[in-house]
């Protein structure tokens, strides 16, 4: 999915009322100020959540919250300066926001990127449930298909041989206790590792 390039004057294209469009454009223009504003709030709010079970009593010297408070205050201050700069920029036509996104927006497929992120997160979530061996083999195969490699004669060997090599290096040689999964997946992983001679 390619990103749609919104024309600079989208009023005619959208057919929205001039007032509504102005409001929308105004909100979009405020976007660069959103991140510093969120950071200011976050830095100030987080100072109240340093300790989960109540703050310890410190009678002498700096307490364990001194350094985080110092850093968060600094973060709030510099974020506020950044916010001020962004708002100043907003008031002046023709000036750019301090953040500059990569110049590949024209060819960047956001839909594909989001799907990729979702796949990676799903891989991380499934790892402790279905075990490293099975999850990794399936993940590599699915990722290859998602990335445009669709020949079964490429995808299957890459997935299976790749997983076998990874299992040997990390569970066989380095003795890393990678997840075997839970329940039936645990039994499957044990069988697989015994079959491969790793256990």
């Amino acid at each position, binding site marked *: 999915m390619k990103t749609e390039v919104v024309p600079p004057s989208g009023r005619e294209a959208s057919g929205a009322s001039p007032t509504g469009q102005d409001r929308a454009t105004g909100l979009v223009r405020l976007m660069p100020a959103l991140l*510093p504003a969120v*950071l200011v709030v976050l*830095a100030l709010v*987080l100072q109240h*959540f*340093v*300790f*989960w079970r109540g703050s*310890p009593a410190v009678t002498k*010297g*700096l*307490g*364990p*919250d*001194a*350094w985080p408070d110092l*850093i*968060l205050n*600094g*973060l709030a201050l*510099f*974020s506020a300066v*950044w916010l001020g700069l962004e708002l100043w920029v907003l008031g002046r036509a023709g000036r750019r926001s*301090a*953040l*500059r*996104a*990569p110049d*590949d927006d024209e*060819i*960047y*497929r*956001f839909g*594909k*990127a989001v799907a*990729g*992120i979702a796949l*990676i*997160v799903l*891989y*991380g979530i499934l*790892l402790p449930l279905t075990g490293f061996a099975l999850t*990794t083999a399936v*993940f*590599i195969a699915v*990722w*290859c298909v*998602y*990335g*445009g*490699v669709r020949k079964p004669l*490429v995808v299957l060997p*890459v997935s299976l041989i*790749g997983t076998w090599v*990874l299992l040997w290096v*990390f569970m066989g040689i380095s*003795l*890393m*206790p*990678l997840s075997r999964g839970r329940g039936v997946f645990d039994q499957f992983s044990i069988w697989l590792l015994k079959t491969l001679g790793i256990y």
Partner: protein
Amino acid sequence: MSSLELLAGGFHAAFQFTAFATIVIGLLVGVVAGALPGISFVNAMAMALPFTYVMEPTQSMLFLGGIYVGGVFGGSISAIIINVPGTPASLPATWDGYPMTRRGEVKRALMIAVTASATGGLVSALVLAFLSAPFASFALKFSQPEFFAATVLGLVSVIAIAKDQPIITVVSLLAGIAVGTVGVDPLYGQARFSFGIPQMESGIRFVVVMIGLFAIGEVVDLIATNRDLRPKHSEGKGARPRLSDIFKVKGAILRGTGLGCMIGMIPGAGATPGAVIAYGVEKQVSKRKAEFGTGVEEGLAAPEAAKNATTGAAMVPLLTLGIPGSAATAIMLAAMMLHGVNPGPLLFIMDPSMVYTIFAAMIIANVLMIGAGIGVAQIFSTLMRTPPAILAAFIIVLSVIGAFGVRNNIFDVYVCLAFGVLGWGMKRIGFPSAPMVLGVILGPLAERYFLTSLANSHQDWTVFFTRPISGTILFLALLFVAWSMWAPITSMLSRLRYRAG
């Protein structure tokens, strides 16, 4: 016996077949581990530790020394070729090395990097061999305020890497330091920002953050932009490496080497501040400072030389004082202690042959690194010919394994993935991630040194300025900030003057 005679004896021992083979294997393991995104050479050294049980003490040090030397350079291979630093110290290699790759000059970039690294490492190994004792006596004067000052110098150096957005760079750095405060504090043992999650109490490791921010976002972009990774050797102007390329950057290599040797000897500093400071200094002294970040050779050579120059230098406090100067040398200390060897001044008297064999091995490893680096880089270039989807799949799996391997904990994988999503978002809006990573690495060190300094001096904060070495380093840090900010401030003032007039 003189140092030279002892070193000759060390070379004789290191050139024995078993010892030499151990150095070569260690070097290759280090370069490969360093080059693999997510598997840092420190991880590789930690994983190699059990293998050293079956070795002689000297042999185990040669093996770990080989991994150390190879690994510090290896991280730059992936940084230059795929913009994913294998180690934190290789971060600057992405700033000017990767743009060279994008121009089709991957071979030139790799040759400059490996030559600079080998030169830095070799000089550092010679420093280790001949200047151990005097430098050790200087490092002995360092206490917590000096360590804090050195860490501050490393932190402020990020302002030098901020192209024209110093405020946002500082915000990113502070956000990173804030992430580094998660977990138990160094003085009271009190858990902070745990939000009731037990795993959060043990903190967020920088390796996990680094893998997430760099590797995950990079591979997603790889697929989303349909980028062609195949090396374009013939496309770039002057893509083929020439010997004259090295002569052009000799000043940068020498400056980086000098800085690396000095910074490496400061316990706790290590390769990352060394490389970042060298990059910042090089940017300031270079005639092409405005072009830094676009593939400037000096910007690649200086930090490469500096980071490998820290390897031998970091072993000075380890061998002479028993103080490890970095995570890598801490593992070497662990290996020595496992074999009943106690490093310190007495080691030079009790077992000089072992000490000088290690020195000789470091020299040999740095010479061999040129071949090993180019060899592994060739394999990497071949890897780049594989479809990006296959490459990306393995980078993700290795990144997840790398995050898991830090503490053998699935929670670190979740943290890594969370930072991966964050890193991708940051990349899309142009928010810099490198300062954040530096903040996560150096923040906890700065906090520990800051609090212990104050505790030791009865909460007298002037201790940082009244102690000569600490005060000098902090003054240098201030000068560094002023020097870095001079150009942006004068440019802004001239713009305002132009508008007013």
